[in-house]
């Protein structure tokens, strides 16, 4: 009984959950290995891979020079020839230096070769603002990848999902862009020790509600859940929907939620123009849920500016809990 209790209450941080997924996958499958800048003794810029080198050695926990194009290429070539690499890009911003390899090679090889090649790798990278790191270390570039057929894009919003989604991503035979959030690394959740998988392309209803659907990604799911608690005090029940995998998207649960609530707010940290919210909005507008809408589809996104350094300016650049609460109230009260 005691052991069951311990297991049921076992909590890990988001960073620990990711580390555990990497460790367990590497223990189980020798084709899996990690490479990236400072992932070895340093333990990764955010400590995600801390200690793994002690267990697996420097061959499988492989420090690379600062060479993002070659890191991506190394993942592709190894994946093409029977390995299942996990690459780490230290900050999502730096993946701009890998884009040729990811967009023109990884995403297209299978299709260009008539479906005869597989490119199974995961490229992990932390995105997001909120650390005072300013414009070149705070980007949310997920939609760059969403726009590329052949890549899968995963954005876990909590520690439990992070482990289950990463294990599923490692199993997947496609290149998976796995976007972590710096502000989530220290957040805790119940994380079982066993190697559970959360299937990719499976949207999650993070909280049930009746008055408004809030579709949110990554850190914004947590902020939407906090907003939900505040709104519930006023009797407003919002339903929080977390796609988890942005592409390929499981959109039916979003439509079902909108059909139930009749109103939808889409929240993401990335800039609004050309952002993922537009895709969600378009899909809802083109679906059977359209007839159920009794308010305009609203988006709450990061401002169309680079992330500023100043703490106050940075705070006002990306959606905060109070912004979600305010938008939700307006929608529910029929002010749009």
């Amino acid at each position: 009984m005691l052991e069951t209790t311990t297991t049921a209450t076992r909590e890990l941080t988001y960073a620990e959950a990711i580390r555990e997924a990497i460790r367990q996958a590497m223990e189980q499958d020798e084709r899996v290995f990690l490479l990236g800048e400072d992932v070895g003794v340093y333990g990764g810029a955010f400590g995600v891979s801390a200690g793994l080198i002690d267990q697996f050695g420097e061959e499988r926990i492989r420090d690379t020079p600062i060479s993002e194009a070659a890191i991506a290429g190394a993942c592709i070539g190894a994946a093409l020839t029977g390995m299942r690499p996990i690459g780490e890009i230290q900050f999502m911003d730096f993946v701009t230096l890998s884009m040729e390899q990811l967009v023109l090679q990884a995403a297209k090889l299978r299709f260009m070769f008539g479906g005869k090649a597989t490119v199974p790798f995961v490229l992990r990278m932390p995105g997001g603002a909120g650390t005072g790191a300013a414009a070149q270390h705070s980007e949310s570039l997920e939609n760059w990848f969403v726009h590329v057929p052949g890549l899968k894009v995963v954005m876990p919003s909590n520690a439990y999902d992070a482990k289950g989604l990463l294990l599923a991503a490692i199993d997947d035979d496609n290149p998976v862009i796995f976007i972590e959030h710096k502000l989530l690394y220290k957040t805790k959740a119940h994380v079982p020790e066993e190697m559970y998988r959360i299937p990719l392309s499976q949207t999650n209803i993070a909280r049930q509600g009746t008055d408004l659907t809030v579709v949110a990604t990554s850190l914004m799911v947590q902020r939407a859940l906090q907003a939900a608690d505040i709104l519930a005090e006023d009797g407003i029940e919002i339903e929080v929907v977390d796609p988890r995998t942005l592409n390929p998207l499981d959109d039916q649960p979003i439509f079902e939620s909108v059909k139930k609530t009749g109103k939808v707010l889409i929240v993401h940290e990335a800039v609004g123009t050309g952002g993922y919210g537009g895709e969600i909005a378009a899909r809802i507008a083109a679906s059977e849920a359209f007839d159920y809408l009794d308010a305009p589809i609203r988006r709450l996104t990061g401002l169309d500016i680079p992330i500023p350094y100043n703490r106050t300016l940075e705070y006002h650049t990306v959606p905060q809990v109070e912004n979600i609460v305010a938008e939700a109230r307006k929608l529910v009260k029929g002010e749009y």
Partner: protein
Amino acid sequence: MTEAITTVKPERAEALLAEIGQERAREMLEVMWTIRAFEEKAKELYALGKIHGTMHLSIGQEASAVGTSYALRPGYDYLLNHHRGHGHVIAWGRGNNIKPTMAEFMGKQTGFCRGRGGSMHIADVESNNLGANGIVGGGIPIAVGVGLSIKLRRTDQVCIVMFGDGAANEGAFHESLNMASIWDLPIIYYCENNQYAMSMSVERAFNIERISQRACAYGIEGFTFDGNDVLAAYDAVSRAVERARAGEGPTLLEAVTYRWEGHSKSDRQAYRTREEVKAWQAKDPIPRFGERLMQAGLLTQDEFNAVRDAAYQKIEDAVAYAENSPEPDVANIMDGVYA
């Protein structure tokens, strides 16, 4: 610093031919002719309007394609190819794969890539030909991963990655050669210096005499040789293969050669003279190898002619096969995006 282009001396050629053997040497000549015939036919099909898109012909560079692939073991070793890559595909398949190659060139379902890739993306994954690449230098970082995979799997395979002089000026070249070097990866970085990156001559694009000099920046071996001599290519790659299999890391090779045709179909060739082209055509690698074989008593003039004629006939058969092959079915257009 001027480094000589290494040529194969007569006594070395004799030793290499003894190593290769008569049958295999004749096969190499046959494959060179097959590539020439394929490329000439490709040009003709394009002129007839039977091919859409573009293509990049390798006429004049056959020695490089054949010499490299015969120093390697297709199906065991790995090939990453570039956009001027028909010859490398054919040489990797020892000339026995021209039907699916031609079918892919014509966009047919029976092509290597089921018509999805075309001229610039021909791959034969089953034989470890990991594909041609439409991006200049695109395969160079991928080779790092192939080399790393070989090292982690502890086999003695080798990866050769072909690229042109233009690719050596891409940033990814620097990242990749450095990474391959620090990890001692079994990779042959093979630069086919055909004198022009589209219109940009190597004289204008480099401030060094030989591209292989860059090897010293990465602490690896670099070597430049006569890329119009099939034995020189075979010899250089063989030595690099030996080093790679022995765990001694990557090599940067530079084959000095010349493309007879324009960069692609849109090229009016305003950047070079007819005299220059003619001077290089006089160094045609195919009769050169033929003469070498005849001098060594391994071939007669009649046999040389017969090999040539057979190659051109084989291409006609491949064209007929491709022309009679079905188009891809539009109903399956989404296939292969995801596994």
